């Protein structure tokens, strides 16, 4: 298995853990061990009414791929990325491009937020629903 395949698998497992609220996942196969651990705390979205002092995870939102295609961080190879970690985005601002069937689709943020993490490498394929960015809403 190549590293890039592994990354896609791990991202898939991470998504399953989020969907089913799983705290730990361990996998062992021939020559491969994967351990994942999530912070599932009182602020879990399944628990209602925790209120004011909820930690910052509550403010996080994930931008996912709305289509299958190739993920690009910048409008062209020699240009600056649309956004970078630590930067701020505004509603309607383009955060990346997904190329599908030779068409460049600009993907916009729906919220105002700070970029916490970029989850996909430039020029990588993404499937529908794959997490691309973690934002902290502002």
């Amino acid at each position: 298995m190549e590293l890039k395949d592994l990354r896609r698998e791990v991202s898939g497992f991470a998504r399953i853990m989020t969907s089913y609220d799983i705290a730990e996942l361990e996998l062992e196969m021939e020559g491969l061990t994967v351990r994942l651990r999530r912070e599932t705390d009182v602020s879990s979205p399944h628990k209602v009414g925790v209120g004011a002092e909820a930690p910052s995870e509550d403010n996080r939102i994930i931008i996912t791929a709305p289509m299958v295609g190739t993920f690009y961080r910048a409008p062209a190879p020699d240009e600056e990325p649309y956004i970078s970690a630590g930067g701020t985005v505004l509603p309607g601002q383009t955060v990346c491009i997904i190329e599908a069937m030779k068409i460049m689709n600009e993907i916009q943020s729906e919220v105002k937020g700070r970029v916490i993490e970029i989850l996909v490498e430039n020029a990588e394929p993404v499937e529908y629903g794959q997490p691309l960015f973690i934002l902290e809403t502002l």
Partner: protein
Amino acid sequence: MSDLSIQKVVVANRGEIALRIIRAAKELGIRCVALYSEPDRDSLPVIMADEAYCIGPGPSARSYLNIANIISAALLSGADAIHPGYGFLAENSYFAEICSSHGIKFIGPNHEVMNNMADKAMAKQLMSEHGLSVIPGTRGIIQDTREAEAWVAEYGFPVMIKATAGGGGKGMRIAYDLDELISNVKFAQAEAEAAFGIPGVYLERYFPGARHIEVQILADEKGSAVQLGERDCSVQRGYQKLTEESPSPALDDNISTAIKNAALIAAKAAGYTNAGTIEFLVDSDGRFYFLEINARIQVEHPVTEFITGVDIVKAQFIIASGEPLPFDQKDVKMKGHSIECRICAEDPERNFAPSPGQISKLVFPGGPWVRTDSALYPGCHVPPYYDSIIAKVVVWGNDRDEAVARMIRALGEFIIEGISTNLKFQQRLIASPEFKEAKIFCDSDVLSLVFGRTD
């Protein structure tokens, strides 16, 4: 590593047919890419495939009919072919054309042939020119009831009024006299307008007690074609097939041979390639009429596989790779009798309402000459978005009696809990004297027969 030019295939479908395609591809050494909607993430085709891409949320329009996402995934995966299965994009010539323009082999006939055959009037015209009897009908859409009256004056009753935009049994009405004709044409036009946004309807002669017979064709891209015998799909409920069998229990050898020959003529006339089905209606006097060509693998292909030993889905890959058929007509030997029952997630007690949900307990029928094609597994979910077929139970016997006894046995050992299914309904149907005597055909009242009442 496949010996064929196709090395990697995208399976643009779900459920049992996706699994069927993966099985054939794996036996040929072809790598498989599953495409799936979000609710199908944990489905068996995704588990069994070599790689998988999510192509959208549950509703078909945004996933399994989402051409852009499907083509993108195919390109990203580096696949050289797409198998569309049945339903969804299987008979969409536009999709086939896009595949081809992206250098991806669409596993099916040429998109122009698909387009021609999708135009039912043109297809009938072509077959008529090649000497086949076609269902008598109006040349196209009728403008008003007077045109309907004129046609009926020439061809007689009963007639069926069909919506051009309909299909799969939807938008059909029968008229036995002038009053019914006038009211049903008006009603059908209004209904078609409401249901499909297109009010066009046309007329066809209706044959009470007719049987629905189709012939399986394989045609390679070198010009060779074989037929794999007929299937009798007469047991239907509201134009939806319930069970299919091969050979037909109702045709004598002469008619069977004539229909199979006619099917080969039709396939050649259409320039058809890959696997397809030529559909006929056979009236109670044994006259048969060309209906249409189904340009896809069909739900009921396993009955033909059972009696011929030919793997039709593997043959699709071989043909799509540009190879000649590895056998000719004289190599095709039919043996015994095969029957399929469609098991659906629906509740016969509540007018066959769909019954999605989680499968809590599952034991498939097994043993000799029983094949269960299904993507179910214990604990899996049947999502509400798709066709209700969840399993096909297919049996083979040396003769029809043995096949019927085996089907009764097989359905009896099928355990499926957590959702409602038509399993018991099918059991009663197969065990009925009418089925044993092959007295059920398209317009039989299957419900009253099975439930012992009319509703």
